[in-house]
């Protein structure tokens, strides 16, 4: 259990997630912060990135002459193709997602509940245009769903909550939450604090409304 000198910035957080992705894993990275994880996968890890618009073996973002309007990621950003890639259509792509073939999916979140419920598609605001994309498929489909987010919202309210107040994306699907202040495992043992960054489990327990257990030091 490492403790740094303070909260993690988004790049450190992405690096932390990347560290926990097994070599050779098939991984889907959500839009936004999760996308940064790709920059921290070690060369030769053999990790294969899936993009739900229809590709395995996605490479880094495309620049300049590499840009091809027919080759984008799920965020519609131009990307590149790695050797060993494969293309497939949407029904096949989501068969892959929903069928439990991805080893890890990394998603952002508005809220995660202690029981692993995920809310990341809709704030519930009545005037907001709802948009779900592949979030619900990914939430219930991947073997392990990691969430990466800041632990507290801009207004200071915790995003790891006893039960989500925002509309759900999936029920009991999140197994680990990476935040700027701590990493949490969610499971049968409740919420286990694996690592803290510039804080302590006791401090976190005072700020969160969910019971925390400190992980046994290995």
């Amino acid at each position, binding site marked *: 259990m490492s403790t740094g000198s303070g909260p993690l910035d988004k790049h450190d957080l992405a690096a932390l997630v990347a560290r926990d992705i097994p070599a050779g894993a098939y991984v889907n990275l959500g839009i936004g912060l999760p996308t940064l994880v790709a920059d921290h996968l070690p060369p030769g890890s053999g990790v294969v990135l899936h993009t739900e618009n*229809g590709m395995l073996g996605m490479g880094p973002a495309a620049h300049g002459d590499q840009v*091809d309007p*027919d080759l984008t990621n799920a965020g*519609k950003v131009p990307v590149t193709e790695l050797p060993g890639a494969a293309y497939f259509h*949407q029904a096949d792509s*989501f068969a892959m997602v929903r069928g439990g073939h991805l080893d890890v999916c990394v998603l952002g979140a508005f809220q995660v509940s202690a029981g692993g419920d995920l809310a990341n598609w809709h704030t519930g605001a009545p005037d907001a*245009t709802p948009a*779900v994309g592949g979030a*619900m498929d990914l939430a*219930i489909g991947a073997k392990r769903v990691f969430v990466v987010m800041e632990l507290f919202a801009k207004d200071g309210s915790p995003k790891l909550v006893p039960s989500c107040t925002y509309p759900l994306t999936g029920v009991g699907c999140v197994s680990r939450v990476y935040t700027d202040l701590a990493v949490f495992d969610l499971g049968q043992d409740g919420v286990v604090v694996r690592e803290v960054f510039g804080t302590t489990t006791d401090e976190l327990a005072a700020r969160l409304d969910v019971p925390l257990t400190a992980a046994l030091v290995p």
Partner: protein
Amino acid sequence: MAVTVCASPAAAVAGVQDGSTVLIGGFGMAGMPVALIEALIDQGARELTVVSNNAGNGDTGLAALLAARRVRKVVCSFPRQADSWVFEGLHRAGEVKLDLVPQGTLAERMRAAGAGIGAFFCPTGVGTPLAEGRETREIDGRTHVLEYALRGDVALIGAHKADRVGNLVYRKTARNFGPVMATAATTTVVQVSQVVEVGELDPESVVTPGIYVDRVVVA
């Protein structure tokens, strides 16, 4: 039956009826059959239900069809994008209905229509507002929601090459919804970059066999 290679996008979209359900391919702009959508605007069909992953970008293509007030309802997974102002304005004003469907379920419902499957039990969305009030069933210890096949009267899709019997290949992630929509519509219209002679496409690499294609146009 045999494919027609059309002389123009206008000829390719001729005959679309008011009130049709139109499946429109593309994910963002990749695979979007812009010339066919523009021809559909000129063609004039109204009261359409449009099934597409997004709800239009900028002011062209699907956004222009929406702006021309031809669309009654959009069935899609992700209408909110940086440049989806046309849809958002119409939706907020109550002028276009939205039926929001998870992306994988959207694809699978169209696949089911093309594959003669009436409905299927799907784990996506269980316990969320999108499954509220819907029929569910526990299968193998997991809750599934019943999803019905989603069929189109017309599909407008983009592909890379067609041969003269309608076999199609695509390019990279522009493949996206094209192959699925081609199977799910009564009439499938394809905008391609090139029409090649029969025998030029490798039979092992054909993605959409010509049986699913009715009209092809180079645009």
